[in-house]
């Protein structure tokens, strides 16, 4: 019995139609369209279309197209947040991401990608890469004018096209970017604080050790 109260009921059309003036509904419809037509000439807010190449509708913050890589600061190489951890590469359902870790001459990881390619002809805009990224690096872009006449290289985005500054992210999706920036700042502060605390502790210990065993300075600091 209670369930029926959940249904939103319209006025009974059968009863409404039975004794109405014949043709009244048609007339009402005609009036509506006539209003549309006449008001479209002087009420600008009615028009939903824009003259596209000259005007552009602002894109919604929720609009999501192909991914981009965020970097801090001004240098897209040094500031890149990506650490080439390859989580997004593994999670990507259509496997459109290709990452090669950058290593120095000794083969030691530099924690940044040497190659980061996204084949946007394969990408399906699912946003999983953005969700799984632990380094706040990959986000969905808002750019949509991507048509090209080169369907191979023109659709394979490398680091040069993918890397976009954090400011761009802030402009594109302020809410998300602010939150991310705040979190990163907090983490940074925390890290700094921990480091400072650690350093202070280490210094204190060192001082203590120096008091006890002056000869073992090198060893204690190394731990």
């Amino acid at each position, binding site marked *: 019995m209670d*369930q*029926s109260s*959940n*249904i939103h009921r319209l006025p*009974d*059309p*059968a*009863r409404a*139609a*039975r*004794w*109405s003036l*014949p043709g009244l509904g*048609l007339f009402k*419809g*005609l009036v*509506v*369209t*006539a209003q*549309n*037509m006449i008001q*479209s*000439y002087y009420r600008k807010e*009615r*028009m*939903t*279309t824009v*003259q596209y190449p000259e005007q552009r509708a602002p894109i919604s913050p929720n609009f999501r197209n192909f991914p981009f890589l965020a970097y801090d600061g001004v240098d897209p190489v040094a500031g890149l947040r990506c650490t080439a951890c390859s989580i997004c590469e593994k999670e990507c359902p259509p496997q459109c991401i290709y990452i090669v870790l950058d290593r120095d001459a000794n083969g030691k990881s530099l924690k940044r990608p040497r190659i980061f390619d996204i084949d946007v002809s394969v990408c399906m805009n699912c946003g999983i890469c953005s969700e799984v990224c632990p380094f706040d690096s990959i986000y969905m872009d808002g750019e949509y004018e991507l048509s090209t006449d080169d369907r191979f290289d023109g659709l394979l985005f490398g680091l040069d096209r993918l890397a976009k500054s954090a400011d761009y992210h802030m402009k594109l999706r302020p809410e998300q970017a602010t939150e991310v920036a705040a979190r990163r700042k907090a983490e940074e502060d925390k890290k700094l604080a921990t480091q400072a605390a650690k350093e202070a502790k280490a210094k204190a210990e060192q001082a203590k050790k120096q008091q006890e065993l002056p000869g073992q300075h090198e060893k204690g600091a190394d731990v």
Partner: protein
Amino acid sequence: MILLAVSSGAPSLWAPEWLPRLPQRLVEMICQALGAPDWLVAIAGFIAAAATVVGVFLGGFALLSLIERKTLARIQNRIGPNRAGWFGILQPVADGIKMLTKEDIVPAKAEWLLHLAAPILIVVPSILALGVIPYGREWVPVRLELGLLFFFAVGTLTELAVFIAGWASGSKFPMLGAMRAISQMVSYELPLMISALGVIMVTGSLSLPAIVEHQGGFHLGFIPAWNLFSPWGLSAGIIFYIASIAEANRCPFDLPEGESEIVAGHMTEYSGFKYALFFMGEYLGLFAISGLGITLFLGGWQAPLPGLGFVPSWIWFFAKLVVVIMSYLWIRGTFPRVRIDQLMRFAWLCLLPMALLTLPAAGLWTILNRNDHNVLAWLITVPLLLIPWLILTAIYNRRLAPQTRTYTFADS
């Protein structure tokens, strides 16, 4: 009601009235100056007259294809085509170039001869029908004594052409579209013709110029004596209008080519120039049927108010044509497509009886008016038409009203 025969000005011989016939005169004069024999002069003049009509309506077709898109766009709060030329005025040209440069595809299972014949058979009757309509006092391309019969006779050819188009394509959607189109056209042709019969009864002639001339003058000095402004004429005019929308395959009766259901109906397998011919035939048919409606019920080229006789008569005709065509566009922008059973039921159970009723009404009207019982004519014909109409609508409201919705689970 006293019919005050206010003459709408003596037949003026000044230039604008003759303007549409100027090409014909010019060609005839040139031919005579060149010393051509009389029969050749006549034929050349006739070709010039035909070319005038065809040219005017092809221009109208191009313009209408643009205006229709702009109007529908405005009704839907869009802007519409505005890129090609000033306010998109060159859009029809762009469309035409696009159509002409497209590949002409004939499906493998099609019968190429019939497939080719169908678009031609669609266009020819429309142009033939345009030839008998009186556009102005002096501008009647072909004066036929049996003009109305000729109009309907060539109009029936469209059905066969639609069938040929659907069958010769050798494909399912065209076939379905053709079956829908034929059943719709056959059903709506009946009320269309019967509602025109009343006009013939009152006028006493099948000649379209005679029908227009019979509607000259004004009631009470200012109400034009058009057939529409009489009880039977209003009834027949409304029926004619609805049936003509269906005959022209326009929304809300555009089932034969309902895009969301059967692609493009009988035109599905056509491309390029042949498709453009279908499109053209449809619009020319629209012009023809609205022109006939204007001739029969809206006084043809007669001026709407006394004292306006100085305006060339064909301008009145085309002004009325613009109004009628715009009303078609308005209706297209407003109403959703009807279902096939609603369409058929409406034609046979509502339009046809009402159209048949206009015949006795028109007969009584003629007889009573001839004997100067004008008030009696109104008193008899208005209830004769109004009461059955009210009964019909009451029945319809009961039978076609949407059912009260019941919920299987929620209501139990």
